């Protein structure tokens, strides 16, 4: 390390009051603002979710008994696909306009900043999906008493989906037309979340305890919260520096 580099790094490492937290909230605010500026894109996952749900009664049967049977799985799979579709744009614009490189150069740990980006993504896709799901559940004749569990399981599950999916998005951001590849590498990793998410709703439908499933979803979320930011940060570095 040369003298000059040492000097800069000391300047950068000088603790700013609330340095990390300020950077985290600033990134979060910036991303939320940017996403709100593209309101059309914001609605896309929700519209996609509703559309896919519409396809099933048409494709399978409008019979309420049949629909009620498959509703938990359908809602979860459709929400999962909707979340997956929105992932490709998570780092794409930042990569294109170079702000991702700025983020890499920031003195704050990249893992924390990427966590802020994922949080913004979840707030504007996972959260709305979880809130809209019960409405679509009505159209699928989802049995009463499982609506709250559906929303709650999606709330917990979609956060894990965003975190895991961000790893794939970070890995493929440098690849032109990486969308299909992104699904290929991420969908297998989504399976545990899907299993426990659907399990929770199905348990609620048949009137069993849902605590175990929700606890598992919580555990998956805790694990991905702990590990995913590091993997996202490493992947972003790879995508930018090669």
């Amino acid at each position, binding site marked *: 390390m040369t003298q000059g580099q040492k000097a800069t790094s000391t300047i950068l490492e000088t603790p700013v009051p609330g340095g990390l937290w300020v950077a985290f909230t600033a990134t979060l605010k910036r991303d939320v603002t940017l996403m709100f500026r593209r309101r059309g894109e914001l609605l896309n996952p929700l519209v996609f979710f509703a559309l896919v749900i519409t396809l099933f009664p048409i494709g399978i049967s409008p019979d309420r008994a049949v629909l009620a049977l498959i509703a938990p799985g359908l809602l979860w799979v459709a929400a999962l696909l909707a979340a997956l579709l929105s992932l490709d744009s998570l780092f794409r614009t930042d990569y294109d306009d170079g702000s991702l490189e700025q983020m890499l150069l920031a003195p704050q740990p990249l893992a924390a900043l990427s966590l802020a980006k994922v949080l913004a993504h979840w707030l504007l896709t996972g959260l709305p999906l979880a809130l809209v799901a019960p409405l679509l559940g009505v159209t699928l004749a989802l049995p009463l008493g499982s609506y709250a569990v559906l929303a709650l399981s999606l709330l917990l599950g979609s956060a894990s989906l965003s975190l895991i999916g961000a790893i794939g998005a970070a890995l493929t951001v440098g690849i032109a037309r990486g969308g299909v590849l992104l699904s290929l590498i991420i969908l297998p*990793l989504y399976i545990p979340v899907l299993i426990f998410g659907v399990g929770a709703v199905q348990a609620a439908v048949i009137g069993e305890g849902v605590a175990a499933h929700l606890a598992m979803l919580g555990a998956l979320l805790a694990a991905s919260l702990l590990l995913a930011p590091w993997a996202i940060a490493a992947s972003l570095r790879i995508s930018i520096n090669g």
Partner: protein
Amino acid sequence: MWTFIHKWGSPKWFYAISAKVQPWCWAVSLILIATGTVWGLAFTPTEVNQGQGDSFRIIYVHVPAAFLAQSVFVSMAAASLVFMVWKVKVADMAATVMAPFGAVMTFVALFSGAVWGVPTWGTWWMWDARLTSMLILLFLFLGVIALRSAFTRREGGSKAASVLAMVGVINIPIIKYSVDWWFTLHQSATFTLTSRPLMPMEMWLPLLIMVLGFYCFFIALTLMRTRSEILRREIDKRWVRDLIKEAQ
């Protein structure tokens, strides 16, 4: 420790030492697989199978392939870790050649499981816990291969595939556990293919031999293909050209 890793990390040293180890691995694997094949196919008594008839003999390829498929993924992730932490290029070369072989083994496990399903379940495919996990594992392998080849620069592809392999290996136990759990919840079949109480010795001894043979096969093939990969990537290095001059 450091010198050891760096020694193994030198492609030249690895190339020389693997040339000596490789024939032994092939020999051992050939002997083990031949023994296991003859024993398993012809000598294990039909009565040990608890009412499946002779279709149980598929176990001698299904289980070794399934074991190996998972071990290949773990080895690939371990090699990726070594590559990412210590920048050992040979580890990345090994990880590169492991992925397609792992996919092949996963396919073998899936195919033999599906064929076994016909006399056992009366259907080619059952969403049984083991077959489902194997299918997911196949997708994980394909994802790693696809990601590596999607990068135009090899360095980026190597690092990205390494991260994905490590993320995948953390997920494999979670996927396995959740699929098992899901299967017991929805269980419609009365039994899974290979989970039976106690295998008699005549049955599991040839199985053990086959498993060991498959592992040796994996080691031998990986050594061989890593050597090729070394030549591919180091083709312009002086030691490779010296090697050829010596051989001529």
